[in-house]
């Protein structure tokens, strides 16, 4: 089938619900309306109101109830309408979802896939464009994934729905309908914790994920660079092996993400490279990210999110060293 990311995730949820009666969906407007981005379109009609539920408008309640469902043996897939609203459920995720397994010594587990649209670039209102992956990766106990293609979105979702762990499934809003891709009709899985080497090259490594993958690809094409492009796909746990392999090969690395720079995922990746491969580098590690302040109003977002020019300048600097 040829689908965009919305279609791919919808198809993954459909297949998972057919295969596993424990899978239930819940969230704001996900039923009749199919979600504000239509990711769950048609699923309530197909599986019923008892399995695809419009909940009261309460993010902490949605995540808290999902944790309870998971503790009692179901496999809930809560949707939080926008990443900026998910902070209301932060306590539930950090204090309970991330800890319940270890504090019960695996008597209980929390098999739950939390879906939410992330990142900006689509001129939405305030609080609709956050990139929160670092927050959820910091605590440990939560798996954090972010696909950049329809293929990966379906495969990662089907994998996440088989794991007995809480998975934060971050869906870049900008990529929902940006392009279509031919993907298998049937179920398949993409391994969690494994990066994807999108393009191979010798001169530098560009480590990225989410909305920045296709921007980086465009820069590499236009500048005719001989670069490794590594799409992480999973933010936590990091595929350190793939990162180090690429960096040791090229000796130059730049990390590109839409989340803001300071204390961002790039800092963690850079630290790991520095700890384990610094003597194999022939230039300092570079980072390109959104600036270190909260996401601006949509009128200014194009000045905030890393663009081709910003990435290109950084690459020039890196290659000149």
């Amino acid at each position: 089938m040829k689908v965009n990311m919305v279609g791919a995730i919808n198809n993954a949820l459909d297949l998972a619900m057919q295969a596993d009666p424990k899978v239930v969906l819940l969230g704001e407007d996900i039923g009749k309306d199919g979600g504000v981005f239509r990711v769950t379109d048609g699923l309530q009609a197909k599986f019923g109101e008892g399995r695809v539920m419009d909940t009261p408008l309460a993010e902490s309640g949605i995540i808290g109830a999902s944790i309870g469902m998971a503790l009692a043996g179901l496999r809930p897939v809560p949707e939080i309408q926008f990443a900026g609203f998910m902070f209301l459920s932060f306590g539930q995720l950090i204090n309970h979802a991330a800890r319940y397994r270890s504090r019960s010594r695996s008597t209980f587990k929390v098999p739950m896939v939390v879906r939410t649209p992330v990142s900006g670039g689509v001129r939405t209102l305030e609080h609709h464009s956050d990139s929160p992956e670092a927050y959820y990766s910091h605590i440990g106990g939560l798996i954090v994934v972010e696909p950049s293609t329809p293929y990966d979105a379906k495969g990662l979702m089907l994998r996440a729905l088989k794991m007995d762990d809480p998975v934060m499934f971050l869906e870049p809003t900008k990529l929902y309908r940006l392009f279509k891709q031919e993907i298998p009709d049937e179920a398949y899985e993409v391994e969690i914790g494994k990066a994807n080497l999108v393009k191979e090259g010798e001169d530098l490594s560009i480590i990225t994920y989410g909305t920045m993958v296709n921007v980086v690809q465009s820069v590499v094409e236009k500048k005719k660079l001989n670069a490794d492009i590594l799409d992480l796909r999973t933010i936590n746990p990091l595929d350190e092996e793939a990162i180090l392999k690429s960096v040791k090969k090229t000796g130059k690395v730049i990390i590109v993400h839409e989340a803001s720079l300071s204390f961002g995922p790039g800092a963690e990746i850079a630290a790991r490279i520095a700890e384990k491969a610094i003597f194999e580098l022939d230039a300092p590690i570079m980072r390109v990210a959104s600036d270190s302040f909260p996401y601006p109003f949509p009128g200014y977002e194009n000045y905030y999110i890393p663009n081709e020019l910003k990435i290109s300048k950084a690459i020039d600097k890196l290659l000149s060293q």
Partner: protein
Amino acid sequence: MLKRVYEGTIDYLQVLDENGALDATLFPKDLDDSKIVDMYKWMSYARALDAKMLSLQRQGRAVTYAPLIGEEATQVGSAMAMRPNDLFVPSFRQHAVFLVRGFPLELFFVYWRGFEEGGAMPEGFDGFEVIVPVATQIPHAAGIAFAQKYNKKDAAVVGYVGDGGTSEGDFYEGLNFAGVMKLPLVTIIENNQWAISVPRKNQTAAETLAQKGFSAGMKSIQVDGNDVIAVYKAVSEAIANAKSGPTLIECVTYRMSMHTTADDPTKYRTSDEVEFWAKRDPILRVRRYLNAKSLWNDELEKKMEEEHLKAIDDAVEKAEQFKPDPKVIFEHIYSYMPPTLKEEYDEAVKNEFWQGNL
């Protein structure tokens, strides 16, 4: 036009008053004197357990602990009302609920020594983990109740929260979720009058905490939380009704001791108030009832106390034999060990970092 669109009232239920006098018209049909003796024994057992925990904590043999003394009737009455398939979701003070539902005391003491192994519930145990962040367990309880309904199980979920917890957003969010979805949830507000140092009247201007259930569209009642029979009756009835939807039960009780072992209540409340409640002690009134019916005496009391102390001491002894293995803290984070975590684990094991100082 002006018309009344809603009217609500809250009933207050008491069956056994502080003098041990019974309101026979309200006496639950499924109760009899032998069950009241059981209630008396469980409440006494819980109080003995509580005293032991305090003593262990003071000796440095247990971590910070939240005493339950004074709240035995609320906890024992509700725990005894649960049917075998029903589940409970505690806050952090429901030690008597764990006790009555058969949680192994040895694990209880391991937990309060500060080790997660004490939270490794035995297979089939009908309770969930102790929850410390206030009221965050109420949405869990709603989700667990959803799962019972979804799986067509004839089971109710009993969730506990304190008076302070009713001010939290999660309290309302959980209740509201259960109300909309008509879930088999019984929420017990263990109103012990104090949220650490803040009195009940500073939590809400509402006359009762029970009436908060109206805003989630559920049946709500206030009960004398120091009357084990009233609590038993209210919870049994709510459980029997759970198939048709949730109930909120406010149990009015009193925290006779400190919030936790780190607290000093003399800073913020008077001894007159504590004395007022001591006269309404939940165990004392049952003893008066049993005495009046010659169902109990000092000899039975002495025998019971010895049994409880022996069981408690045996469990403490076993729990103190528990030897923590530092490696284990890495092993239950995920369903598998990711390579990045494995590296930290290997470093720790190889160097035995837990040896500590040089």
